[in-house]
């Protein structure tokens, strides 16, 4: 993926402001951009959500199908997360099979949902070893203005919470759909919090130009009881041990804030 050009003057300005504790868009170092969330935006999907994080925009659709379980967990449904960096979202996205950036995005979001056991997969078994429900989480990036991971994680969780499962009965080994819906069993709420390291400082929720300036990126996903359930470092720079532990602490507070936006009541 080629990168967006940010002029040297602006790069310097971003870095200098951050070293004095300010940001070009007026946010504090640990402030998120405004989060706007709509759910149920695609009627054909079992669940869906559209998230705007500043100018970054991500849509997630959930589809549920009947399929075979993995042989090592015959009694559990299957969760798959896929991400598409659609070419209309940025001049740097190109059509074609998923590249390493979209694979990483999907796998980091997947890890948060999977490791926190957010979806009760054991409740999605129809016939042990033979038939289970497969939950497809498809992340569709619509506008790229930085921090795709957090926007996608928020949208994925919101879409899962909004997912309706069709009611069914099993007749002669076949799944028959009955009228009516139940909600998907979701029992945990993982929230990804991403940091960029710029001028040796940690900033939360980097937008695109900050991502071009950053040395490295760190995502910490925190579940509802404040436990860490996924971590991913990215980018060509590094973090010190102190920065890693500081990030984990900030992530816990920020995850709590974000969760209030997604999980109501």
């Amino acid at each position, binding site marked *: 993926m080629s990168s967006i050009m940010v002029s040297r003057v602006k790069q310097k300005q971003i870095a200098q402001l951050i070293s004095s504790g300010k940001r070009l868009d007026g946010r504090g170092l640990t402030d998120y951009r405004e989060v706007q969330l709509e759910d149920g935006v695609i009627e054909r999907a079992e669940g869906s959500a559209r998230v705007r994080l500043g100018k970054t925009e991500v849509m997630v659709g959930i589809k549920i199908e009947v399929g075979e379980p993995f042989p090592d967990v015959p009694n559990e449904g299957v969760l798959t997360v896929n991400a598409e960096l659609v070419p209309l979202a940025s001049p740097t996205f190109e059509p074609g099979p998923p590249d390493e*950036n979209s*694979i990483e995005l999907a796998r980091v979001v997947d890890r948060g949902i999977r490791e926190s056991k957010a979806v009760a997969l054991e409740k999605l078994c129809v016939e042990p070893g033979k038939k289970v429900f497969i939950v497809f989480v498809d992340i569709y990036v619509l506008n790229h203005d930085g921090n795709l991971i957090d926007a996608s994680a928020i949208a994925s969780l919101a879409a899962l919470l909004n997912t309706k499962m069709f009611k069914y009965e099993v007749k002669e080994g076949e799944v028959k759909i009955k009228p009516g819906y139940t909600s998907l069993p979701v029992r945990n709420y993982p929230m990804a919090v991403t940091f960029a390291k710029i001028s040796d400082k940690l900033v939360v929720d980097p937008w695109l130009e900050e991502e071009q300036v950053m040395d490295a990126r760190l995502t910490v996903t925190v579940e509802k009881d404040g436990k*860490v359930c996924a971590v*991913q470092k*990215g980018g*060509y720079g590094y973090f010190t041990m102190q*920065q*890693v532990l500081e990030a984990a*602490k900030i992530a*816990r507070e920020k995850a709590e804030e974000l969760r209030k936006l997604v999980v109501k009541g």
Partner: protein
Amino acid sequence: MLQETPRKLIDESGIRLDGRGLNELRPIKIEVGVLSNADGSAYIEQGKSKILAAVYGPKEVHPKHLALPDRALLRCRYHMAPFSVEERKSPAPSRREMELSKVIREALEPSVFVEYYPRTSIDLFMEVLQADGGTRCSGITVASLALADAGIPMRDLVAACAAGKVEGRLALDLTDLEDKGGEADVPLAWMPNLNAVTLLQMDGMLTMEEFEHVVNLALQGCKQIYQLQKETLKAKYVTVKEAVEE
């Protein structure tokens, strides 16, 4: 070869299945300069994990449009042999391998003076011949040595090691069984000279306190591995020096 799944991975006195204590690394054997065609190469055995790494470059970039005007292009490929795991793995690169290739590249690039070789590429290949947990870490450890063996200027060696939580206890350098049966796994790569964490991932669930402990445990592992890396390089260059003097 099927592994039997035992009921308990750690016994009451904190001894693991392979006889190790909780803070102990698996036995490690490292060699450098093992492949004659490559500009640099190294091999590691960490417990039952066996990984071979080779470096080609700096050399001309193909295809040419990928060349960077201000630095070398570092390319990494982490790949598992079809026979390296219990059930045959398709040789086509999986999503996991693509992600690991990316994070390994990002773990090693901070150590390399890529700006010394503009418009060139440094190609790094890691082949996992046998996998038994912790292969991304062993891969980084061995790849860093292959880069050094190729004579590429580096800020420091990168040492990597994982730690995690198994049956409620925090343990260093998990095997495949411990990783799968355990509650969390945290791979970490470290450059001692800069106190730099260049790779950090986690899956599983840990409280903040446990996370801090596990990260520090992995760091202790990295320190030991770093010593081994240095000894291996020194040993190789003593033999080279002797050969030259003869």
